[in-house]
């Protein structure tokens, strides 16, 4: 069952690579939160109940509800255009993300270690690289934040793989999560959208000295 959820997680990455609207990214992030909730529930059976309850509450409240709602609120409030505006066409994004998955599979297969839970490793590593690719290939700041959130989901998946032995690692992942929420709160409630009408990193290239 965990494997099924993780495969859906990878499919969500492929889906986000061909999405045209920013709101789709937000929905996929919410979906990933729900999937992580399920994986947490199925995977962490050996840790104490209170800690498990805390982690599950965090995944469902922060990852699946609070952050997506807040992001969609920000998109409305700052009047960010609905199109994602990638530097590369979506077709190439899809090929690149498929290649990322292939390479991580090959990488994971070449590691001869019995302690490593490979499907978790593949999913987390490909999510991480996908997040990095998103940050590199999208123009808007808000999509960069979403790429960061995706990276953090990947880190969370990897921490779940060892969660039974090292529950503190999962808690650290949660800390990162809360930190990221505060980060987007800080960036966007500081009226960045009001001062600079378009939060577009392209305009930074206009800054040059003569």
């Amino acid at each position: 069952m965990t494997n099924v959820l993780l495969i859906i997680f990878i499919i969500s990455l492929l889906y986000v690579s061909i999405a045209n609207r920013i709101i789709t990214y937000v929905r996929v992030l919410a979906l990933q939160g729900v999937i992580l909730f399920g994986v947490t529930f199925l995977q962490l059976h050996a840790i104490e109940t209170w800690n498990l309850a805390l982690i599950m509450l965090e995944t469902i409240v922060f990852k699946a509800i609070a952050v997506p709602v807040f992001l969609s609120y920000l998109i409305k409030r700052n009047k960010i255009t609905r199109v994602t505006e990638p530097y590369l066409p979506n077709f190439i994004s899809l090929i690149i993300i498929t290649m990322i998955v292939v390479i991580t599979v090959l990488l994971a297969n070449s590691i001869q270690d019995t302690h490593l839970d490979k499907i978790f490793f593949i999913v987390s590593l490909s999510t991480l690289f996908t997040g990095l690719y998103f940050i590199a290939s999208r123009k808007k700041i808000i999509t960069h934040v979403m790429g960061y959130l995706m990276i953090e989901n990947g880190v969370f998946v990897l921490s779940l793989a060892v969660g039974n032995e090292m529950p503190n690692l999962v808690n650290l992942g949660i800390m990162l999560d809360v930190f990221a929420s505060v980060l987007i709160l800080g960036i966007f409630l500081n009226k960045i959208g009001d001062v600079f009408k378009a939060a577009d990193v392209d305009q930074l290239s206009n800054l040059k000295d003569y």
Partner: protein
Amino acid sequence: MLSISLILFCSIFFAGIILRTKSITSGRMGPGILQPVKDVIKLFRKGTIYSDTTSIIFRIAPSVTFASVLMACMVIPFGSSKGLVSFDGDFIFFAYILALGKFFSIIAAMDTGSSFEGMGASREALYSMFAEPAFFILIGSFALLTGNTSFYKIFSSLHLGSSITYMLGALASFVLMMIAMIENSRMPVDDPKTHLELTMIHEVMILDNSGFDLGLILTTGYLKFAMYGALIADFFIGNLTALWAIPVFIFIQCLFAVMVGLIESFMARFRMSHNPQFILALSSVSFLIFLGVLLVLEKFV
């Protein structure tokens, strides 16, 4: 024998169900579910007009296409009973006999000398080319899973047991359904109702066909749908007895038709430039199925 007769039977009402679903969702009564077949019979009684610029290829193409789809239907098994033809590697035969039919419809469209039809032919070739890896990776993964290379052996030794195999079955049905939509030029990729030649794919290729030939082409489309429906159904009826398998088969075909109708009612056609990425996404999903098969076989982890 059972499979081909069931496919022929289902193809009679398949298009009717799609049409009826679309009518009901848009708030109309709609024609009876045998209306498409009646249309085809009407076309069969009509004469055919050939353009002066066309050659023999244009005349034989509809028949070749129809024959190729009929041949492809023959290799499809029904649950645990064989199809009419069955040999090792018949899924490759299946894919390429369909490609032969498609090739003839493409060169027939070029034969008319119309620029619109050439454009449609080019698009059709492009999209089938993109759909091919999805199909091969999908069936190849199931061949790997069961260790056999013919449709009959794959489906009769496929047992959906654990949750991950159900997941693979669901994903495979999704991919096959989307391939069926692409091969039949239906909604997310092509709109059969469009009236602008610039946006058509399949419809523009058959603009010059009339009468008997047009009827044959329409029949081919219905048969193709029922054929892919049969492939999807085979994933689920592998270990049922014939008594149960037949109703389940017909139920899955009806469900497939209703879903096609619903997709056509609630989705808009993609922009032409978005089609390749959508079709390539299917290949990526098939690739994930392949990884899932490796997972089941414990080749890694």
